[in-house]
């Protein structure tokens, strides 16, 4: 079709004109937010639109990722929870004691709670749940790791349970607060995995009613609900009749659905959307950074050129991250200088290590032997160019983050680094990591508590699992650090624990193993008709237990 060749310029003109017309036609919708009423109203259906991939299984024991945690928060509950200060508080367990040697924990359980299929919640249920998570057939990854030290579960009496450990675990309570190890009906767990994935049974404020694949999950109110965590306001029933949990992968469509009233709450709000929602009175924002690690770029110290600390420091001193975050995230993300999320009380921030100093960087590279530059301006040593491979997971890095990496690439070029960005889908990205085919990488990690440092920076985590995946992507191999992290995870003395985690973070930051960027972004936008919405202080998932709709 030769005519196509000529159509392009004409098409461009028409298209541009059409866009201009449409944009002109789209005047900003006037915000007429009704005054929030202070009295909760019962009833109504709320539509939640998620931008995450639809979980393949609604039981977060299976696999165990964030999209599962988001929805499971509405129907499953854990033994303990956290309050806003990060203190552990009662939930399905009322109190607990650690044995003197730290090898066992005894939990007293609530005796008035039943699962929504009528099965009572008791010590046997706890045992069945831990066994389910630890059963290889369940294929749990996140939950499995959280409960790794539990060797035996003993029902002391109907409502007292003792967890016996292979080693003391200072992170046990934090681990148990995560929805990936929440309590499900033992009777329901006996069904086939296919059935249990389709409709897990918990004690939570809502019940899974129906799952229309690739469309929505319908959750209805649990009319017998009586077990909110200790910090919840009120103890009554949830107000909403039902929640329609939809999956709308496209960011613009999701926002359009919120604006047009098809949805009342959306997640994965992108920086540009959050910015434009600021001027809309009918839309509110909930910013709930995820716990665990901050979003950071890991420098692979396991091979050249980053096995040389000077080269790592030179890289970090060369790139201006602040300006990129400012311009690409429109002020919705705050720069981090810590390996841990800002919601972690024990996070250590060392901003001075990350000031940009291109002269110092140049000197460091000269010292390290990368003194010459080739025709393209890149530094070379022994005829080899200073090249860095940076596989980027397009599933995990949002567009703004990918643009940030491009800015980092440009900054690094000025300093003489050739950064090769490789945008990859999730499986190929895992593949590149397994092959040790990277110098830079950014990988999120969500977990409650500072024990995430042990998973990410203990040298044990360099040893790949049979799949080839490993969590210590910076390949930090430091005996002093290993020792600190091991002792911190075993101590029951809070002060010791705090001091050891501080020293551990100092080693990671001082060694220039990582370039922290910002917290794991977790922004929600919701209609101002929604009241009483809050994020769980555990894994920052929103809960609708106390939410209501203003009519």
């Amino acid at each position, binding site marked *: 079709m030769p*005519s*196509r060749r000529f*159509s*392009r310029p004409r*098409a461009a003109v028409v298209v541009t004109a*059409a866009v201009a017309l*449409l944009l002109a*036609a*789209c005047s900003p*919708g006037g915000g007429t937010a009704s005054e929030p009423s202070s009295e909760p109203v019962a009833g109504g259906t709320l539509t939640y*639109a998620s931008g995450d*991939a639809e979980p*393949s*299984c609604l039981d977060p024991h*299976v*696999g165990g*990722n964030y999209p599962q945690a988001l929805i499971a928060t509405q129907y499953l509950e854990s033994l303990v929870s956290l309050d806003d200060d990060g203190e552990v508080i009662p939930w399905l367990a009322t109190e607990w004691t650690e044995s003197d040697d730290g090898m066992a924990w005894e939990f007293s359980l609530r005796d008035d709670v039943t699962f929504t299929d009528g099965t009572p919640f008791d010590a046997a249920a706890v045992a069945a749940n831990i066994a389910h998570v630890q059963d*290889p057939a369940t*294929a*749990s*990854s*996140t939950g*499995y*790791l959280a409960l790794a030290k539990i060797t035996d579960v003993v029902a002391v009496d109907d409502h007292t349970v003792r967890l016996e450990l292979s080693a003391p675990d200072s992170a046990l309570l934090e681990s148990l607060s995560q929805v990936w190890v929440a309590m499900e009906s033992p009777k329901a767990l006996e069904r086939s995995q*296919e059935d249990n*994935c389709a409709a897990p049974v918990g004690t939570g404020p809502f019940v899974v009613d129906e799952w*229309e*694949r*690739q*469309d929505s999950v319908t959750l209805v109110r649990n009319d017998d609900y009586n077990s909110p965590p200790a910090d919840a306001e009120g103890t009554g029933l949830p107000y909403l009749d039902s929640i329609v949990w*939809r*999956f*709308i*992968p*496209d960011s*613009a*469509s999701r926002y*359009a*659905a919120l604006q*047009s009233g*098809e949805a009342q709450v959306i997640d994965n709000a992108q920086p540009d959307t959050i910015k434009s929602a600021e001027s809309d009175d009918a839309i509110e924002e909930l910013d709930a950074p995820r716990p*665990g690690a901050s979003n950071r770029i890991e420098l692979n110290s396991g091979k050249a050129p980053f096995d040389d600390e000077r080269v790592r420091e030179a890289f970090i001193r060369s790139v201006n991250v602040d300006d990129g975050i400012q311009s690409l995230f429109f002020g919705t993300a705050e720069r981090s200088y810590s390996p841990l999320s800002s919601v972690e009380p024990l996070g250590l921030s060392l901003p001075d290590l990350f000031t940009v100093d291109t002269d110092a960087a140049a000197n460091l590279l000269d010292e390290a032997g990368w003194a010459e530059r080739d025709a393209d301006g890149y530094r070379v040593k022994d005829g080899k160019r200073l090249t860095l491979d940076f596989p980027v997971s397009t599933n*995990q890095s949002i567009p703004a983050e990918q643009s940030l990496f491009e800015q980092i690439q440009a900054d690094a070029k000025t300093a003489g680094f050739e950064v090769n960005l490789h945008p990859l*889908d*999730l*499986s*190929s*990205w*895992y*593949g590149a990591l*397994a*092959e040790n085919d990277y110098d830079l990488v950014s*990988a*999120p*990690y969500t977990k409650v508590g500072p024990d995430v440092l042990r998973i990410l920076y203990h040298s044990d985590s360099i040893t790949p*699992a*049979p*799949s*080839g*995946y490993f969590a210590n992507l910076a390949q930090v191999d430091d005996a002093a650090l290993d020792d600190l992290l091991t002792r911190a995870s075993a101590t029951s003395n809070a002060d010791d624990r705090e001091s050891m985690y501080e020293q551990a973070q100092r080693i990671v930051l001082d060694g220039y193993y990582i370039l922290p960027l910002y917290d794991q972004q977790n922004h929600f936008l919701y209609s101002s008709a929604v009241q009483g919405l809050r994020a769980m202080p555990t894994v920052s998932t929103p809960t609708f237990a106390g939410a209501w709709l203003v009519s």
Partner: protein
Amino acid sequence: MPGYRRWLLLRAGGVVFVLWAAATITFFALRLIPGDPAEAILGGPGSQAGPEALEQVRREYGLDQPLVVQYLTYLGRLVTGDLGQSYSLHKPVATAIGEQFGATLTLALCSLVLAWALACGLAAWSVRGGRVAWAIGSGLELVAAAVPHFWLATVLILFFSLTLGILPPVSVPGPLGIVLPALTMAIPLAGFLGQVMRESLLTAMESPFVTTARARGESEVRIFWRHTLRHAAIPAIGLSGWAFGSLISGAVVVESVFARQGLGRSLLSAVQLRDVTLVTGIVLVVALAYTVMTLVTDLADRAVDPRRRAVVE
């Protein structure tokens, strides 16, 4: 009719070959990309799979077998009509496809009908309106054929949902929900069909039988619907099989943007999760639909054009 039977036999053989080739290429293409499916099944952001869990998954899905063995096992099962088990959905592939196929088929058929209606409507209007209308119609078709789905979808949402507020921006139950997705797929296709029709329309309009009709005093519009459209439509009908295939691939984008159920979305997530059995299953179903559609267009072609019947039989 030995000629007809031979033709049918050849076509059937062609269908089988297309299906086999589609299954084989998809199977190997997905397995040759680096990345461990077992890790993808268990993994995902922020989770680290334990070795026991990985072993379990490998055994369960036969991923510990050599690739050739996996392939032959897979083909063997296909022959018996078993599409296998989807590991990303924890259910049989046939069930997963069954749940989603209806939505995509409805969308594709609605889009195809809408595209034909738009293309014929525009052609009729531009025939009646003279030189200027002809130029405008032709220009619109060029633009329509060139716009990408994701852009068009966004513009339609902006206009119909956010500005006018008359149509939902995401799919909802009922007929209203399908309007914007179908329109998004129909507009580029209409432009394409229109362009193809226009050339033969031009030829037909200058042919002697049209001159005769004009001499009889028939109006241009009547000539269009009665005579020239038939000629113009033939090459476009031939393209409908292809168009159907392109609609299914367009569904990948459109279903995601409008959050509609359907095979396109299943395919996208299955590829990302390296769910080989599900991807291959979907590709097979789409290939089957495509070949069937091509067969149907061949038959339609004969119905519209009597000359074709004479030639083949």
